[in-house]
């Protein structure tokens, strides 16, 4: 318990940030029309590929002879990159169906 409060005090602003980010996430999505559910899911999925940054950081710092890290890290980069590039591309394709402009006033 003590530890928990310690953590709260030390990371106070971080907690605010987390709470606000969650609310922002909710707020952003709350009024999306059903038809955008899938593209939105896909777009969010692409963003979750941000984990690739961790893989890059790891790999840049890895010893050049630490092959486990190098190989696994590279694998991580490949996977993350598929998620990012594929995710954005596939979202873009889904959204192409909304290309037609409204002529409404």
């Amino acid at each position, binding site marked *: 318990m003590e530890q928990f409060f310690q953590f709260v005090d030390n990371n106070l602003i971080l907690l605010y940030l987390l709470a606000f980010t969650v609310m922002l996430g909710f707020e952003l999505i709350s009024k999306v029309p*059903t038809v955008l559910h899938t593209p939105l899911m896909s*777009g969010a999925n692409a963003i979750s590929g941000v984990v690739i940054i961790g893989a890059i950081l790891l790999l840049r710092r890895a010893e050049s002879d630490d092959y486990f890290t190098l190989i696994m890290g590279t694998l991580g980069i490949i*996977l993350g990159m598929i998620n990012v590039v594929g995710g954005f591309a596939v979202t873009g394709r889904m959204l192409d169906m909304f290309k037609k402009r409204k002529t409404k006033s």
Partner: protein
Amino acid sequence: MLASALNLAYLIGALAFVVGIRRLSSPDTARKGNLLSAFGMGIAILATLVYPFGPIPNNYGWIAGGMAVGGGAGWLAANRVQMTAMPQMVSIFNGLGGACAVLLALIEFRQLDTMGTSAGISALLVLGLTLLIGAVAFTGSILAYLKLDGKVWDSQVTIPNHSVLNIVLLILAVGGLVYICTFDPPSFGLVLGYMALCLVYGFSFVAPIGGADMPVVISLLNSFTGLSAATAGLIYDNQIMLVGGILVGAAGTILTVLMCQAMNRSLFNVIIGGFGGGASAKTSDGDQVAKTVTTSDAAIQLFYAQSVMFVPGYGLAVAQAQKVCKEVDDLLQANGVDVKYAIHPVAGRMPGHMNVLLAEADVPYPQLLDLDEANSALPNTDAVVIVGANDVVNPAALDDPGSPVYGMPVLNVWDAKNIIVLKRSMRPGYAGIQNQLFFHPKTSMLFGDAKDSLQELAGEIKNL
């Protein structure tokens, strides 16, 4: 100063994510939103790549290779996939993101093990969580993909009382996490075992959920991937991973809830009541199931069509929906859609029934097509909206000699690209016979009183 450049790049990236998601939630701005998110990701990756951390190995070769391979594969996969298989693709991508998080955690755990350094309980907790969440997202997504693609059936991957198994696995996984944290550092073998457990749990988690609910599950797993990215962000004290991950986690969660709402189900119901799931979302006749469509999807379909044809029937009269129908017509026309009405000679209950109603709603005569005109216009029609008609669009009239309507000329609505049927139930019409049209692959049902449905449609179209 350079450090703040990196931080600023991350901040910009994070803001791009936020604004990107915001724009993704409206059809008008969605494409730009996607580009903006991608731009944010690009900036963050670029900054991470070029920032001079000082004398470190960098390993640019490995990195470049990995990025080229991954990027190329992702691009190809995304562009080759069939329009209809997109959800499967998203599911795979999501799984790979989870796998990436798992790898990161694994590497860190191994480093702890090999170095033998102690990391502190909170660091271990963060690593373990990353592993757990990433693993569940990974195997869960892969199974979801297999199910969606029809490669795996529920019965192949479930056992009786599967939910009990799931609860046991969940307890084991959480227990394992706590257990690992008691070692500092834990041995790599222990970690590998724990990882295996997590991977199994992810698979088992998704196993009992019905195929129709897969989109909901993917969305949920997507928020898991987001959370694993966030916890990984804690490992590296990296704000954009943290913020981006949390954002996706929150957005994914609420999106999951919204998707459940759109299907009139609760999330709990989807996850736990997995067996036989999807039944309420479909209406079946023996082996056949009629697809349903949500009002907003129908609205989009009509709004972005070139040509729409209404097929009014007796239900239009019963619902007294003629004026709302005309309102939808006006809204569509205001957006350049070509709108026509196909009047079957015996639609309704008296000669000229539809004419009387549509005249009341002031539909100009030139928009009314009779049977022959309609049938020749239908192949070039993007969407047909059947408003409370039934017998007059029954394909049995053409191909089922045993049917009492066999031989009656009908509107060949199946020649059009899409068919939306507005009626209250699966009940038959005047002739009292079932209509195969409702199970046609091009058909989706929008159940409800025609007036209400059209009113909602009008509302949705106005919001587009």
